[in-house]
């Protein structure tokens, strides 16, 4: 029973990992950029949520009203101001610039907030649980997190495949030169894509901040979880990324059950196994 509980927890946290991954995946799909600072931006959102909810006396979920637009605008400005200038045939500039950004964000947060771990308080929902037959208890919060992750992935799929903006994303991703001939401003499209990615990052950050304690150096682990979920699931497939996140979460929890020190290691091993035997991921639709 304990094992089943672990597995269910793993599935539910997989939704959060899929959220980490979705923003990463989106940006890679549209502009072939991998944002090394992605995890740090998630932590930045968590800190932002913390500050907003404590200073305005808001529930962490309500802080999204402020955090969401801030991160969205920040993403647009970051892309147009800095990242667009790094895009081209060379893979080094975007990688090194986002790496530099990662260092800046981590140390900036350290300056502003110190290295102390923080956590947001969401009240009763954090401990409330749902009783299921067989003695299983599922926390309402993890369940909510999972459901919202699915909804967000669904929304992203909808945007990508059923709207003119999504059409513009796909066209620009296919052939950025010809897309310009259609009147699409590459700079603007990329800016919008990053804005959307940052909005997803904001939501992921708030959830993270409620679920667990975080500190300025927690970014890279989140990047790695998101990355592993993307690779396990396969590039170019958001639903695959959800499965990837779930596999990652379940592996981590099974590892933790065997030995608490093995939690992270188990996840990495699952990733390496998929990399060894199915390097393109389980449901891949796009090449790297």
């Amino acid at each position, binding site marked *: 029973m304990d094992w089943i509980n672990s597995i269910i927890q793993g599935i539910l946290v997989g939704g959060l990992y899929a959220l980490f991954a979705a923003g990463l995946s989106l940006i890679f799909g549209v502009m072939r950029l991998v944002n090394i600072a992605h995890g740090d931006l998630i932590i930045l959102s968590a800190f932002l949520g913390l500050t907003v909810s404590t200073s305005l006396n808001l529930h962490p979920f309500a802080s999204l009203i402020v955090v969401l637009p801030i991160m969205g605008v920040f993403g647009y400005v970051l892309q147009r101001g800095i990242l667009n200038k790094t895009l081209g045939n*060379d*893979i080094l500039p975007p990688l090194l*610039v986002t790496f530099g950004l990662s260092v*800046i964000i981590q140390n900036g947060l350290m300056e502003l907030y110190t290295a102390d771990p923080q956590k947001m308080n969401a009240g009763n929902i954090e401990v409330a649980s749902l009783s299921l037959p067989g003695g299983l208890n599922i926390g309402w919060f993890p369940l909510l997190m999972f459901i919202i992750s699915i909804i967000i992935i669904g929304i992203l799929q909808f945007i990508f495949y059923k709207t003119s903006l999504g059409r513009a994303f796909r066209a620009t991703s296919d052939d950025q030169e010809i897309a310009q001939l259609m009147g699409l401003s590459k700079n603007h499209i990329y800016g919008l894509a990053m804005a959307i990615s940052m909005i997803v990052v904001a939501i992921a950050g708030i959830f993270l901040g409620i679920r667990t304690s975080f500190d300025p150096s927690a970014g890279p682990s989140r990047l790695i979880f998101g990355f592993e979920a993307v*690779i396990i699931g396969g590039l170019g497939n958001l639903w695959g990324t959800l499965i990837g996140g779930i596999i990652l979460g379940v592996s981590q929890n099974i590892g933790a059950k065997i030995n608490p020190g093995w939690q992270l290691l188990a996840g990495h091993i699952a990733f390496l196994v998929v990399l060894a035997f199915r390097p393109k991921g389980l449901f891949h639709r796009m090449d790297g």
Partner: protein
Amino acid sequence: MTTDRFEIVQSSSASRISIFIAFFIIIILFFAPWWAGRADIRLLSEIFLYLSLASLWNLLAGYCGLVSVGQQAFVGFGGYLLFALTIFAGFNPLLAIPISGIFGALISLPIAFLIFRLRGAYFAIGTWVVAEVFRLSFAQIQSLGGGSGSSLPVAIVRSIASSKAMRESLIYWMILGLTVLILVSVYLILRSRRGIALIAIRDNELASESLGINITRSKLFVYIITSGLTTILGALIFLQKLRISPDAAFNVNDWTAFVIFIVVIGGIGTIEGPIIGVLVFFLLRETLADLGTIYLIMLGCVAIAVMIKAPKGVWGFVSSTFKIELFPLSRKLKNK
């Protein structure tokens, strides 16, 4: 025939002069234990270690397009191997160091098997994951101190040399020697036929593939060599520190972030770049390191600014403005 009028020349007067100067400098540095104080020796050692790490990273990233943010895996591996080989296998530390390099090269094979399946930035993150696996795994080994680490036993330290001064000098000379070896090796690799192939790959992968150059084999060769050498550097680093822990051994900031900044600011894809970069880096550190996190933020800003405004770094700017090369790599046509 018009070809009789030209010959292919690789060195220039600038490079010939710099070879003399370099020789002179190396001799002076060799005698440092006599004219420099202990703190200065330590600083010089650190500079050389970073220069070596940077040159190797540059070879991987600037020439092979293999951008690793996980070289700390090998640094830490070298450190732990030093401890394990001396404590459990009874090797003399001086012998354990080159042996660790061999192990480093060996383990890079299965790692390459896995991560070469990834491309570009995903490859980079893959190397990070590997470093994390190393860190988490070594934290589980209780006999080497587990999560809190361990110190090198006094007896082993004494076996290097009898006096502290002699020990420090020996380690310093090993580091100096290794740095010169690495710089020379990097230069020779790039000057060789394989090296020309690498530069061709860097400039246009598809074109060089169509010329029959086996890209994967060339990249693998470089990856194995840099892994082995980085492992040796790790062993030397922790021989100096005398203490190891998973967080120190596999620290991203110390062994990757700083190295990347050095290469980027100095000039990526050039041999001279890391030399300039390491000088700039230490200059900044000596003057600004008190500022702690602010210093790191500034480093990040400088790296971003350099990448956007002057992607070839300080040396790239100098080299293209004044058209000089200290380590001659390009072949020029010269009138006979």
